[in-house]
């Protein structure tokens, strides 16, 4: 029998790596957020929690409390993510349902491949594709013009000028978010719909349920874990996104919390406030992350027992 220490020894390098570059790195964000900055607005981290300076954290909280720019950006982020999620579910559920329940044999394989394919295409290339299509003389712009959608969007106030899809339009950001992340929603949905035992639905039909009420009262509740997993998997990257608004809108009125953090940290104007906002974002998302980790662990246990 291999000694129990062998396994710990094997795990050691990975544990050290993750401690250093994940845990310590995250502690650096906290130390910077509760630190100070020098006269060149460069951060001076305070490593000892006893020295922590809550000034910058309070500044951000005060701004949020008084309805300042950070509150606006946070609320806008929530709104974008909520709308994009609702649209994604409306598109993703029927697709996942069809792929799981009605696409069989060779076609099933092809449909599944088509659903996985977007994962294998670089996100930025998928955005680049739409930037080309939605530029003023792009193919999609022309198509939207000729079938009247452009006029409809202008009259609804969702587009400010003809051919101006990439000109600071919130609606384009939401469209791009849906396009970017809907594959992340479809796959977990597919997996959970695929697992539903067909006999449950047959039983409902035998007992007199119409196809619609069978769906509403059997399939939909049974696919709830897939909906939640997909929603979390989609929400996490959406909340941290800054490149999508940058690429398809490029105006401050589309800024999400990720844009704010990116401008403050990487582009470097004020790293301390950026660190505070990063922690604020992480705290908001912690609920989602914990839910997902617990769900995967439960699924893992069930698989191990089965």
């Amino acid at each position, binding site marked *: 029998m*291999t000694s*129990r220490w*062998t396994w*710990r020894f*094997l*795990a050691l*390098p*990975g*544990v050290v*790596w*993750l401690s250093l*570059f994940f845990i310590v*790195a995250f502690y*650096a*964000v906290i130390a*910077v957020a509760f630190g100070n900055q020098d006269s060149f607005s460069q*951060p001076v981290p305070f490593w000892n929690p006893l020295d922590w300076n809550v000034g910058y954290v309070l500044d951000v909280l005060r701004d949020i409390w008084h309805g300042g720019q950070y509150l606006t950006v946070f609320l806008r982020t929530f709104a974008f993510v909520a709308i994009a999620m609702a649209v994604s579910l409306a*598109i993703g559920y029927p697709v996942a*349902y*069809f*792929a799981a329940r*009605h*696409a069989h044999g060779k076609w099933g394989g092809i449909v599944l491949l*088509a*659903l*996985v394919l*977007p*994962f*294998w*295409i*670089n*996100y*930025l290339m*998928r*955005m680049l*594709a*739409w930037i*080309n299509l939605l530029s003023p003389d792009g*193919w*999609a712009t022309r198509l939207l013009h000729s079938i009247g959608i452009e006029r409809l969007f202008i009259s609804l106030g969702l587009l400010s000028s003809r051919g101006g899809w990439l000109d600071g339009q919130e609606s384009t950001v939401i469209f791009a978010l849906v396009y970017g992340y809907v594959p992340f929603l479809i*796959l977990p949905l597919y*997996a959970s719909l*695929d697992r539903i035992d067909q006999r449950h639905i047959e039983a409902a039909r035998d007992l007199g349920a119409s196809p619609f009420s069978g769906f509403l009262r059997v399939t939909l509740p049974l696919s709830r874990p897939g909906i939640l997993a997909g929603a979390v998997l989609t929400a*996490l990257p959406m*909340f*941290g996104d800054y*490149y999508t608004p940058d*690429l398809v809108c490029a105006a401050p009125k589309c800024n999400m919390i*990720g844009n704010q*953090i990116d401008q403050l*940290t*990487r582009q470097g104007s004020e*790293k301390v406030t*950026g660190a505070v906002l*990063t922690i604020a974002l*992480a705290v908001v*998302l912690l609920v989602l*992350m914990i839910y*997902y*980790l617990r769900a995967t662990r439960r699924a893992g246990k069930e698989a191990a027992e089965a």
Partner: protein
Amino acid sequence: MAGVLGWLRNPWGKPRWLGVVTLLYIAWSILPVGIAVLFAFNNGRSRTTWQGFSTRWFTGAVGSVFHDPALQSAFKHTLFLGVLCVAVATPLGVALALGLQRWRGPGSGVVNTMMLLPLVTPEIVMGVALLLLFLKIFPGLGLGTTAQAIGQVTFTLSYVVVIVRGRLVSIGREYEEAAADLGAPPHDQLLRVLLPLLAPAIIASAAVVFALSIDDFVVTQYLSSDASTTTVPMLLYASARGAPTPALNAIATVMLVVTLLTLSFAFFVYRKFAGGSDAAVAAALEV
């Protein structure tokens, strides 16, 4: 014909409208990228108006993928980081997967959670954390290639662990125990029994790490220093709105082909040696 008539009579019947929605979705999700690839072959400077077929943006003398210095440098740096990341993340992740799978007792739960965290942490949070780490704790290392490689290893490691551990679970302990019964010492159980059985998962995870690395944008951008550490995804981000020529589409197309080949390779290796349905394999390699 009967099908068409039947559909006309009752378009809301069983799964027909679902089939149409699915078909439209697939077209919507893939066609735009197909058009972007098409324009990589445009015989002109426009990325929106078709001017005939040509490979000038791949092989032409001026401003093409093969001859433009900026594109060349980004391409080479991307592949270099990919190889570096595979070389570090794969052994590290395989060892961690083996360790975590068999290590029971205090500490293993914490390590397990720590291993899964990078998978659910939004990339911008990791980007900021690693940026501040390299600025404030390892200023000697600084930003640039080393930092980028370390950052990529940190978030790809978990994928290796998840893929390899999935295979470990399906292998079970019987082979090891048989080897032990036949008198194999511990290191032989590991090297001559377990590792060969894990080979497809290890190869597949290496390919997945490579694909994740060359496609990564956020962490790589946060840890970049100067123009020499620009990768292709960073280039796409920087010039998508202002790109002067279809050369950008061309290099994106080259990267797409590299990623697709890498992941198809992973898919087939895993399926051939490890078995399982297409869906299960796709789920295992979901990236």
